[in-house]
């Protein structure tokens, strides 16, 4: 075996021709430092949800990669995302998780910023600065781009990145499955309760890979299935309608997003679900009927675990949640899990779902505990100098993905592997690491927007 003589990232660590990926990309601290610059400083990152900041002056302290940021609504109602660092000496200007304020005041020397980021208060401005400091040059640092999409707030430090919806591409319909209402109405999601936050001892790519669509690890959740933690007292989710659906892996190759999804046959009728509560079961039966009456492909699609590049996991149904894998260092990740419900759902439904959500996910969730145990021990067992010499295999299902997949008239975008018989593939993971390697190697967003070049060539 060759010795690891090269520090940091280099081409070949992600070898998709052979389906092998070096453990170095998970445990190497030089690679971690490089990916902060090359991935997180120029990617679209999830910051929060507008339902967290409904009123002028509301704020939520969030993160973008390693950076602390402030999501806030200014006095005029405009949404901003700022670096949470005073322009004078760098102290955090906001040390609360959330709240409402007129100003963000630095506790170090007292510089104060409005909710629009403007520097409004400088102690001894006349006396010490002789009124000579140009305050307009020292506002809080604001993200280069911001997008509010159906309530979710996304931000990017890189002005040259494509707009968020272009970055999302055809994956948008899978994000819609979590943001639209259970009955199919657009953008009904609101945050349920607070954000669950905890630290896990593994690289952020372990959970990102898992949520990309790892169906192969279902065996590790066997105990949860046996306990019957699901909302009908069986298994861990209500699966009955999935018995007639096509189970797919979907990967959007030029974007790095991927998911599991289920496509229902035409004219499929809602199946019993949420049977631990007759009232909740009736509510969802009604929603499912309404959803099927709406035009559009999403009435026949059921969302499942997926990943928006680089570090946002979605789970549109049972439980309905977004997770963000915030990198702390090569060996630690801070997980933030946001749970969603329809804003106009009855209180009894929200309470039922709160119980189910936290029984399933989060630091106390039974399923997430299984996952964390796998990621944490996989990481620690891959750090040693011997372990690092041996790559992981991602060969499963290579060459079996198709494009233009269609089931009973419903076309599915991207590269698709039909898992209905195959059960599992590693197409989503290859897609994730292909995009990750592109980010690590590309010097500009121009190199990363391959779809624009293809469109230009097609137009010629």
């Amino acid at each position, binding site marked *: 075996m060759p010795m690891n003589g090269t520090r940091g990232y280099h081409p070949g660590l992600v070898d998709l021709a052979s389906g092998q990926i070096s453990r170095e990309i998970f445990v190497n601290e030089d690679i971690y430092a490089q990916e902060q610059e090359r991935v997180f400083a120029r990617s679209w990152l999830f910051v929060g949800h507008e339902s967290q900041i409904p009123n002028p002056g509301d704020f939520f302290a969030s993160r973008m990669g390693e950076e602390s940021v402030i999501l806030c609504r200014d006095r005029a109602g405009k949404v901003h995302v700022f670096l949470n660092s005073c322009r004078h000496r760098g102290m955090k200007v906001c040390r609360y998780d959330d709240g409402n304020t007129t100003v963000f005041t630095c506790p170090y020397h*007292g510089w104060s910023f409005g909710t629009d980021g403007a520097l409004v208060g400088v102690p001894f401005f006349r006396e010490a600065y002789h009124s000579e400091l140009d305050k307009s040059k020292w506002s809080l640092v604001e993200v280069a781009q911001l997008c509010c999409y159906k309530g979710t707030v996304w931000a990017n430090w890189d002005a040259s990145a494509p707009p968020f919806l272009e970055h999302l591409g055809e994956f948008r319909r899978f994000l819609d499955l979590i943001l639209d209402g259970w009955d199919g109405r657009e953008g009904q999601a609101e945050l349920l309760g607070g954000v669950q936050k905890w630290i896990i001892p593994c690289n952020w790519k372990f959970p990102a890979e898992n949520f990309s669509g790892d169906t192969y690890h279902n065996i590790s959740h066997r105990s949860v299935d046996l306990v019957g933690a699901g909302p009908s007292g069986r298994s861990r989710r209500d699966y009955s309608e999935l018995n007639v659906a096509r189970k797919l892996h979907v990967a959007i190759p030029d974007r790095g997003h991927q998911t599991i999804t289920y496509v229902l046959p035409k004219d499929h009728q809602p199946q019993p679900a949420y049977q631990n509560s007759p009232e909740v079961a009736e509510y969802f039966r009604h929603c499912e009927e309404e959803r099927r009456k709406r035009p559009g492909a999403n009435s026949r699609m059921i969302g499942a675990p997926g990943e928006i590049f680089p570090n946002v996991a979605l789970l549109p149904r049972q439980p309905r949640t977004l997770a963000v894998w915030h990198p702390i260092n090569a060996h630690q990740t801070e997980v933030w899990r946001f749970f969603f419900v329809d804003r106009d759902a009855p209180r009894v439904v929200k309470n039922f779902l709160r119980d189910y959500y936290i029984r399933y996910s989060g630091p106390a969730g039974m399923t997430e505990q299984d996952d964390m145990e796998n990621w944490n021990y996989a990481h620690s067992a891959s750090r040693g100098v011997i372990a690092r010499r041996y790559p992981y295999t991602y060969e499963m299902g290579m060459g079996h993905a198709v494009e233009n997949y269609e089931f009973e008239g419903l076309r599915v975008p991207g590269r698709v592997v039909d898992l209905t018989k195959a059960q599992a593939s590693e197409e989503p993971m290859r897609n994730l690491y292909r995009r990750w390697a592109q980010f690590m190697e590309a010097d500009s967003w121009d190199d990363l927007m391959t779809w624009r070049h293809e469109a230009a060539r097609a137009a010629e």
Partner: protein
Amino acid sequence: MSDAVNIRTLAPGTRVILANGAEAEIVSNPNDGVWLFGRYLSSVDDPGVVGVEEMIFAQDVVEVRP
């Protein structure tokens, strides 16, 4: 040096004396313990600021009018 004034306890409408002798009335208090929003009622140094609303730094507040 006079005792430090805890500006977090000051409600809108309270009048304060500043280090330069000016007098101001509190318009609003962000309760950060560092700043007040106030309107100048008098200023010997700069009569032009009378009526102007400005942020007032905690260390500039030397006295609270009864």
